[in-house]
């Protein structure tokens, strides 16, 4: 009986064991954890940063190729099925799952940081640096992250809805592994997915907690000690654990939609009260520059000058998106049943991307406007504390206190919804793809997410968060390349059968 349990729950036990070991080392010997993770991280970046660039570009080409090919008409579900969610509901959930906290965290600070600290070949704080900053923000948050999500979600959706297999990453490996997906090789694939999800989500939760803390410190003079950040994580954990355990899935969906609406209102508010034509000009010219340079940007690592910059930003982002992809991929797959591959890919690649471009044009563009045209010194704030820049930025607008509170509320809700969804997804991944997850697994995964975020913040703060995302993403990137192959095998077999 015990053997049977071990066999059945091997993915859960193995992945929980690895995470627990990580947490234990982080608590007992943070220095050891830091030095080991730094060594792994440096090794990956030294030898494989080019691979992240090529892979992300390949995922984009592959996703577009599948959508525009003869496979585009294949439905993610049975032929007669209709989409389960309305178009708006679908988009709102896509967006909340895919970006959420990151958009708020980096919306103002990333363009400012690129403007202040561009690669060495560019002069800092110049109009060229501003243009460069906006283009790179579009690039980092543009079509590539969604292409990465698309690969995972399309594979899961195809193999589970169309081929009747469990909603697990290992199911997509059937064409390669055959019956071994039920053995150790398949379980290892699922463990890698869990590993990436825990660290990817913990990174986002860490960002969210830092930003919420910065907001409270800025508004109410709360202590900036790390213990307060940990306290925020503990409170947020209690909230999302309650939500996950009570199973308020409908409530989470409603919260996601409300969050998108609040975010949109905030966006329109900043757009209308800032220099609207300036922002819209930034949007159009950056969009043009992005489209014109997307291939160069995709494969550019500045090996002669600026390699460090590319590693710190582009590679971090690609790794972060990859580490999020099992979680977001599973979530997007679940909500996309009944849509054709073409509709799915083209919508996922275009609509959220466009919204993100508008978001960064409004927040980043307004920040650059204040910096360049109004002489407001936001860059030095962003340079000192990334999480504080947004609140100093909001101070330039009327009812800034209310705006800051709304932003904090948005962050908390994104934190809770993301962590709640991640807990459910982790539970499902470690329960053979079943959506009915035992409560103890939800508790363990919920606590693991928060504890990993705390351990990372304690060991190295923001850098540790970024480092761990890159490390966790690496093996999953290889998994994703194989997913492309197996998806292609499945689709081509199906089309060949239909044509025969």
């Amino acid at each position, binding site marked *: 009986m015990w053997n049977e349990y071990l066999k059945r729950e091997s993915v859960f036990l193995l992945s929980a064991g690895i995470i627990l070991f990580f947490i234990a080392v982080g608590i007992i010997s943070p220095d050891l954890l830091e030095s080991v993770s730094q060594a792994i991280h440096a090794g990956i970046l030294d030898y494989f940063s080019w691979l992240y660039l090529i892979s992300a570009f390949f995922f984009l080409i592959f996703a577009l190729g599948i959508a525009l090919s003869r496979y585009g008409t294949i439905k993610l579900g049975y032929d007669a099925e209709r989409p389960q969610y309305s178009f708006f509901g679908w988009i709102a959930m896509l967006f909340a799952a895919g970006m959420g906290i990151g958009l708020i965290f980096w919306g103002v600070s990333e363009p400012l940081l690129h403007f202040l600290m561009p690669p060495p070949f560019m002069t800092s704080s110049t109009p060229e640096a501003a243009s460069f900053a906006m283009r790179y923000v579009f690039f980092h948050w543009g079509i590539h992250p969604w292409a990465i999500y698309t690969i995972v979600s399309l594979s899961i959706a195809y*193999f589970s809805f169309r*081929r*009747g*297999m469990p909603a697990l990453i290992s199911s997509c490996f*059937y*064409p*390669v592994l*055959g*019956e071994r997906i039920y053995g150790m090789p398949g379980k290892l694939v699922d463990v890698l997915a869990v590993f990436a999800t825990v660290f990817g989500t913990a990174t986002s939760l860490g960002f969210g907690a830092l930003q919420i803390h910065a907001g409270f410190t800025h508004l109410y003079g709360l202590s900036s000690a790390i213990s307060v950040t940990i306290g925020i994580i503990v409170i947020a954990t209690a909230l999302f654990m309650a939500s996950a355990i009570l199973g308020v899935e409908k409530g989470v969906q409603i919260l996601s939609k409300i969050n998108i609406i609040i975010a949109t209102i905030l966006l329109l508010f900043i757009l209308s009260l800032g220099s609207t034509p300036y922002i819209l000009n930034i949007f159009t010219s950056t969009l043009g520059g992005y489209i014109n340079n997307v291939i160069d940007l995709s494969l550019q690592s500045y090996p002669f000058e600026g390699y460090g910059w590319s590693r710190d930003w582009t590679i971090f982002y690609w790794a972060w998106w990859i580490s999020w992809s099992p979680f977001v991929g599973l979530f997007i797959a679940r909500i996309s049943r009944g849509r054709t591959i073409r509709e799915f890919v083209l919508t996922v690649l275009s609509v959220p991307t466009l919204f993100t471009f508008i978001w960064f044009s409004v927040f980043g563009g307004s920040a650059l406007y204040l910096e360049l045209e109004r002489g407001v010194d936001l860059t030095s704030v962003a340079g000192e504390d990334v999480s504080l820049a947004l609140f100093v930025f909001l101070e330039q607008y009327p009812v800034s206190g209310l705006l800051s509170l709304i932003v904090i509320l948005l962050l908390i809700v994104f934190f809770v919804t993301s962590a709640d969804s991640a807990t459910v997804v982790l539970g499902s991944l470690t329960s053979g793809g079943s959506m009915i997850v035992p409560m103890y697994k939800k508790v363990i995964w919920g606590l693991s997410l928060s504890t990993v975020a705390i351990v990372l913040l304690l060991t190295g703060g923001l850098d540790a968060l970024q480092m761990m995302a890159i490390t966790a993403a690496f093996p999953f990137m290889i998994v994703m390349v194989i997913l492309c192959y*197996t998806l292609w*095998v*499945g689709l081509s*077999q*199906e089309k060949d059968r239909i044509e025969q």
Partner: protein
Amino acid sequence: MFEKTLIPVSYGERPEELKKIGKILKNLGSTSICLFHVIEAGSLFRGSDISWLTILKETLEELGLDVEVKMGADHIASSIVEAALHEGADEIYMKTKRRWQIGTMLLGSISRDLLRLSDIPVFVHKVRPRLPGDEEVITREDLIILYATDFGEASVRTIPYLMEFQGGWCHILHVRGRMADPFAEEIEKRRLHEKLLAVEEELRPYYGRVTSEQMVGDPSSEVLHVSDQINADVIVLGRKKPAFFSAPMGETAERIVTSSRASIFLVP
């Protein structure tokens, strides 16, 4: 079907080895041999003594074969292919030598060009079946034939030749990629099983024993593996039209020809 065989020969060919080859070909049904020598434009031996060809001719004639000698010039592989068509040969025979294994040849070599260009079947004689000793006779009944099929057009074209071989044992092998889900895999397995049984039935009158199996994996590796496992003498393959990115005669055929220890009978 194998009545007339064209054998490309070059200076230095050993009569005793050709005699052994002649014995095998005779047992396979060849009655007439065309020895074909191509004189290269820049060759030192151009226009020199060609009495060695006469010796080779006489060696084969001793076996009771009808032998003629033909010469060509220019691009070697093209000349051989052209001559085979012109002479009405049923097959082109090539023996790979130890010092000149096909496996070590680079793209563009004569043999590979020949395999790629030929419009008639090419028999590439490798380690198996071994050349018979002076008193030894290798008959059809001794031959183990491995028929690698994917049930495509190229594979179907090989069936009449398989009937002609009439060896002791024909093993039919189908290798494919795995289907995308267990249910589809099971259906495909059953479908192929029926097809393999049908081919078995078709070939049964021509062989002492006919068996079949289906495998999942890389076609060339599995064909080579099974060929060694059953100690096959000849692997019968159809030559596919190569895809744009693939090797000149299709990746599977190319890898099998390169690495096999059994002889290859490639049907264009």
